[in-house]
């Protein structure tokens, strides 16, 4: 079985966000780029599945829609242990555009399991996995918190209100995973880092797809107000403030 892990290239989560050109563009000057944290966990789980599969899983590929400057981030995924990578040479304009590009790649390459992080930490679109499912007419489940491959079928767990849901699916299948799918992202070892450049990184030219989104303006969220500390025995004051200031009760 071949697994594809879809991967976004996102600013490091500690980046100070700034905008340029009259707040119409994200200012990426000096930004450190990383693998989207959800995708990093997805890749970690995919690697664990391959290692425990006794040879049944033969290949882990990562795919990214991005220009050439995303390649260092792709190589981080190769250093972690992915076998090869695909980059669709286009700016990732919106979730629809990305999903359409990835769908083309999957049609050409053929993967039995596709793993997507539930969202990306930059635009929080949360839409690529679901759209892929539609484009490919492939079953998908979202908010997956445990993923296994047992006797040729996919077994998944997801958190639901008051408990856990356990589902299984035939392949091909799309798992849209959340944090918890793996405890920590895998730290690449020296061998992985040194061989990352020698692993195949295929570049596809993008399919003709028009994005459906236009960015008009970026705004920063309002600054968080200072935290007020109330003594644990002063419930009256807490209720008063929640009522008059926070206006939540």
């Amino acid at each position, binding site marked *: 079985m071949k697994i594809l892990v879809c991967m976004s290239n996102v600013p490091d989560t500690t980046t100070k966000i700034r905008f340029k050109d009259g707040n119409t563009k994200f200012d990426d000057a000096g930004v450190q780029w990383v693998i989207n944290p959800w995708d990093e966990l997805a890749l970690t789980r995919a690697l664990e599945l391959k290692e425990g599969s006794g040879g049944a899983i033969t290949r882990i590929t990562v795919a990214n829609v991005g220009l050439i400057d995303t390649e260092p981030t792709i190589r981080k995924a190769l*250093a972690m242990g992915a076998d090869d990578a695909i980059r669709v040479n286009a700016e990732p304009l919106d979730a629809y555009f990305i999903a359409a590009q990835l769908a083309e790649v999957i049609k050409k390459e053929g993967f039995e399991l596709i793993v997507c992080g539930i969202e990306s930490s930059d635009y929080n679109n949360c839409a690529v996995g679901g759209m892929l499912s539609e484009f490919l007419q492939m079953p998908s489940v979202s908010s997956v918190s445990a993923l296994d491959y047992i006797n040729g079928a996919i077994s998944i767990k997801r958190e639901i209100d008051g408990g856990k849901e356990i589902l299984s699916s035939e392949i091909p299948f799309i798992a849209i995973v959340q944090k918890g799918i793996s405890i920590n992202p895998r*730290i690449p070892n020296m061998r992985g880092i*040194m061989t*990352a*450049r020698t692993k195949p990184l295929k570049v596809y030219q993008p399919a003709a797809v028009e994005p459906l989104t236009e960015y008009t303006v970026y705004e920063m969220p309002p600054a968080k107000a200072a935290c007020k500390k109330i003594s644990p025995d002063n419930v009256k004051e807490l209720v008063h403030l929640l009522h008059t200031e926070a206006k939540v009760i």
Partner: protein
Amino acid sequence: MNFEFTEEQLMIQKAARDYAQRELIKDVIERDEKAIFPTEHIKAISELGFMGMLVDPKYGGGGMDTVSYVLALEELSKVDASVGVVMSVNLSLVCYGLQEFGTEEQKEKYLRPLTADKHGAFLLSEPEAGSDATSQRTLAEDKGDYYLLNGTKNWITSADSASVYIVIAQTHPEKKHKGINAFVIEKDTPGITLGPHEKKMGMRSSDTHSVMFTDVKVPKENRLGEDGFGFKFAMKTLEGGRIGIAGQALGIASGALERAIKYSKERKAFGTEICNHQAIAFKLADMATAVDAARFLTLHAAWLKDQHKPYGIASAKAKLFAAETAMWVTTEAVQIHGGYGYVADYHVES
């Protein structure tokens, strides 16, 4: 001049940082307080490839450059300098010595395991021969097909946890430093005994002992290099060792600086975070400048080594300045933490 790191160097730095900040930090204070050797962590960083990162891949190593080594050592030592010193002694002294001067058989037998689950110790210092390495009293008498070792070595890092020793000893006292030899010896060789775990001021979880040799038989094939090569061997090896210790000291300094900056942004006095007071801000600026200077000196020495240029003087300067910086910056970091700095729970104390 090029001040940019390569993609691989940055990945190594991040891997070391991730491991240190995620795993090493969990029990570092307890390990230091109770002088517990970081067995599991050394195993984990071996699996990640750090313990053999400079060794030729032919012998199971990572084949990394010295710049990467400094970056990794800094990140690990920021959190736990004991782990830093175990790694530094293994790589800079033991692995380097074996790789550069060992025979093919010695490399296969002793170097290869040091890149996997074993690590080594370097036995040079004696009660009366520390920096004055020429005054070796440990004797390695030539008995024909073996050497007979007798003597005592002091302040030996990893003396108990290591499985392989490189021992410097005198074979021909009349020839002075030209009579010295270096040997690779397994720690469990009969006749080797350890003194008690030294109670140190810091880096308590690295195991430091004295090591006694009583009629220890060492086969001839365990000598490194020609007869009398030991002093040169030690000098050559220690040149690179200084880069490792500089990287470790740099980590101690930059770790203390990071904690001081963080604390100064949290702690308030006179109505504002203390980093806004010039008394603290000036201190932080001086500390950050010194840490960067130590970093540049250390990386420069590492770069010279990687370019196969002479690096002895550069590595000595780096070690001197980085060690002085570690002493000074940690004292200042304790000052910035005020009373909390003197308390072990705040980590900056160590």
